[in-house]
């Protein structure tokens, strides 16, 4: 072992207009280790990986593989060096089978005819060796997200990649799938693969990684052994200050009813059954109600019906005592409903608009921002600058930054700022912390609690158990389109919650 490092990135600097994404960063990946790359959103993790992958060329610094300097100009060079990556958003052909996806691009052929049998044998052998359970003949769109991810991993292994990059791999997984993934990663490392694990989830890093390198605002903070460190230390390194893991909130008596849902039924777009079946609940002033459940149990459709994006098939929705079942989205918004959408790219932002234009997406028509049919640009600028300041939205060029060029976390912060600053009576927040780092999560949780303390009603939809247990005052568990239980987070346990979520128990 003359070269202990599989990959070394030495003194990498990469600048973008208005921002130094990577400022003299050094990252050394030992052979056979799981090395976590930790940092807040926008800390420069993705940029660094893009440099390693040949998508960007750094201004300064060099990359070494097995001690030799290499020049990675494009992803093909990276592949040739045995570097593989599982992207956060999978790059799979939806209508192909698992096997087809794995061999895509490196098919074995004989006289122009595919030799799938050989490939199948190799795939099965690999899946056996590393404990990656997949059905090679299943179509991608039919299988679970976990299995899709295993397909991505097999894709790398099939190509004999030695260095595996996992870009926030757990963001899309259920708790059980996360456990499986952790086991797989340990397995891979034990077999000699070197793994770079990009994450901002401290629990996972503590569980699986050997060493951690921390980035903050484009700068290299340091590398530590997981053995001798704690969650608190890591988060301090990452955020630059102490982070409160416990959501601080005072007990409160809820006031009058703000949102009332009676026997609501919503049709499903995917299957013939209703996605939401005869659901009734309410949200009162000064309380946070959380809809918990495993993804795909009707939460999305429920929120669509509440916000007006989809019509209700039956039942009644009332806001502040008024029937809004058939009210337009705009009217609901004006009446005092804010909505932090689940999919920030699909609904939350106009990605090609500037940040300032996105900040007024719900309010551009108000007299404050429109004069005689013309946009009042100075007013919009001023407003955007205030929100950017108050909610700490970071971007390359301030108000005129294109939303598309911002990091996911800051995009989310911008949406949260916009929706909360509207001073709604009811705030519907759907997975508001998805894909965010601890600092940002803490911030958003605090904002939600602040709304509650201002005597507003908050409806939170969450898939994260930790969030479900710590933020709300009441938990409603949704299973297959129905509310199967109402729990008090102070008295219930994670295990009990899990039973309701899995449909094993109902009230």
């Amino acid at each position: 072992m003359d070269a202990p490092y599989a990959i070394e990135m030495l003194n990498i600097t990469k600048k973008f207009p208005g921002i130094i994404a990577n400022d003299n960063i050094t990252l050394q990946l030992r052979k056979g280790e799981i090395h976590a790359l930790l940092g807040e959103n926008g800390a420069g993790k993705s940029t660094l990986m893009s440099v390693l992958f040949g998508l960007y060329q750094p201004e300064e610094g060099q990359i070494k593989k097995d001690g030799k300097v290499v020049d990675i100009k494009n992803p093909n060079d990276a592949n040739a060096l045995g570097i593989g990556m599982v992207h956060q958003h999978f790059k799979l052909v939806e209508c192909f089978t698992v096997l087809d996806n794995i061999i895509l691009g490196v098919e074995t052929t004989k006289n122009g005819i595919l030799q799938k049998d050989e490939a199948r044998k190799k795939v099965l052998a690999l899946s056996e060796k590393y404990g990656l359970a997949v059905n090679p003949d299943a179509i991608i769109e039919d299988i679970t997200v976990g299995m899709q991810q295993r397909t991505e991993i097999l894709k790398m292994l099939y190509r004999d990649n030695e260095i595996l990059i996992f870009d926030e791999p757990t963001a899309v997984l259920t708790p059980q799938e996360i456990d499986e993934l952790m086991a797989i990663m340990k397995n891979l490392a034990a077999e000699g693969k070197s793994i770079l694990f990009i994450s901002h989830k401290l629990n996972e890093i503590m569980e699986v990684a050997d060493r951690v390198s921390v980035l903050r605002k484009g700068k290299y903070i340091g590398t530590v052994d997981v053995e001798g460190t704690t969650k608190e230390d890591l988060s301090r390194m990452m955020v630059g200050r102490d982070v409160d893991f416990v959501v601080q909130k005072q007990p409160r008596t809820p006031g009058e009813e703000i949102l009332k849902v009676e026997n609501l039924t919503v049709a499903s777009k995917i299957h013939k059954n209703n996605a939401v079946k005869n659901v009734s609940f309410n949200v009162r002033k000064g309380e946070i109600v959380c809809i918990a459940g495993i993804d795909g149990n009707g939460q999305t459709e429920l929120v669509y019906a509440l916000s007006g994006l989809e019509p209700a098939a039956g039942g009644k929705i009332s806001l502040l005592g008024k029937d809004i079942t058939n009210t337009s989205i705009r009217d609901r918004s004006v009446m005092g409903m804010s909505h932090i959408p689940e999919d920030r790219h699909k609904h939350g932002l106009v990605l090609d608009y500037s940040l300032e234009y996105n900040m007024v997406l719900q309010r551009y028509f108000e007299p404050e921002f429109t004069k005689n049919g013309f946009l009042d640009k100075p007013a919009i600028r001023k407003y955007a600058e205030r929100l950017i300041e108050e909610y700490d939205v970071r971007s390359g060029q301030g108000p005129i930054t294109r939303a598309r060029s911002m990091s996911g976390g800051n995009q989310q912060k911008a949406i949260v700022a916009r929706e909360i600053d509207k001073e709604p009576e009811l705030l519907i927040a759907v997975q508001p912390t998805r894909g965010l780092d601890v600092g940002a999560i803490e911030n958003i949780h605090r904002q939600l609690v602040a709304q509650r303390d201002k005597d507003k009603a908050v409806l939170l939809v969450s898939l994260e158990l930790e969030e479900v247990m710590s933020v709300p005052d009441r938990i409603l568990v949704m299973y297959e389109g129905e509310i199967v239980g109402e729990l008090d987070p102070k008295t219930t346990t994670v295990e009990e919650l899990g039973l309701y979520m899995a449909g094993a128990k109902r009230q």
Partner: protein
Amino acid sequence: MRKLLKNEGFESFIASIICIILGLIIGYVVLLAIKPAGASKAIVAVIKNFMYYPSGAAKIKYFGNTLVKTAPLLMCSLSILFAYKVGLFNIGASGQFTVGTCAALYLALGANMPWYVCLISAMVAGALLAAITGILKSYCNVNEVISCIMLNWISLYATNMILTKVKESTSPYTLVVANTNPKAILPSLGLGKLFSNNPYVTIAIPLSIILAIVIWVLLEKTTLGYELRATGNNKNAAKYAGMNEKRNIILTMVIAGALSGLGGAFLYLSGFEQWQCTQSSVPGMGFNGIAASFLGGLSPIGSIFSSYFIQHVTAGGAYVDKTLYCSQISDLISSVIIYLCGFVGFLKLVLKKAAEKKEGGETK
């Protein structure tokens, strides 16, 4: 300088210029391939257009002619880029142009209406035709390209049928507006005098430029423009923000259609051309408008210049020596150049990549 290079408007400008040069080169190569002897002279003729005439007065007069046809092209180009900003591809500009022509000419020749009535009805006709596309798109999710193409042909033959009622008895052309109903001719306000008494130079030319500016203001400065562009960029976000995306799609098509319809009136109410009632192809104006809007970097202001350029080479094609080349050559060369104009977007991308490589990631 760096800042200038990174400026999007400047980037579009450079890309457009490169496209034009490439187009001219390829046009030249085509001419060379057909008959090497006359190629240089021919391509120079295309570029020179009205400069072909020796006398200053004639130059100015024919410059006026090019402008007369620039105005309707600009209208089509505005129509297309306006719809494009809202995420719709208005390939129906031709059809809207045709029904605009139909309304204008029929009211001028058949009903003896004054020019402003004809102009307004041309707008309304174009708007109504485009509204069909908009309604089908927003309520039935019919692809606007398909419905536009179908409506193009329907409008062409309907127009031929209607205008046959006001055609000359001995030819397939409609009656001469200036003779039949002079008050339907667009007023010149003395503009014609500036162009060596060119009778076809009318208020259509300044009007089209004013409309380009109006469209720019509408898109960039107004609340409506904000809504429309948001709808074009992300339909789902527009819906989420409570914008009425169905209304916006229809409204966009109506405005786009009105612009193209007006283009038809601008051309035929100047008296420059007569409609041929046996015409069997949709007017090229609407399609050249696509090239003009892309060459203009999808900016209303850029379109003013790109429309002029395209009209310039189209008119210039007429001066190619027909004893050396067949009569289709002028159209062929101008269409090669126009075709290349469609590559602006692609070239912009190439330029951007090149700039990024060169500058690395240095700050602005």
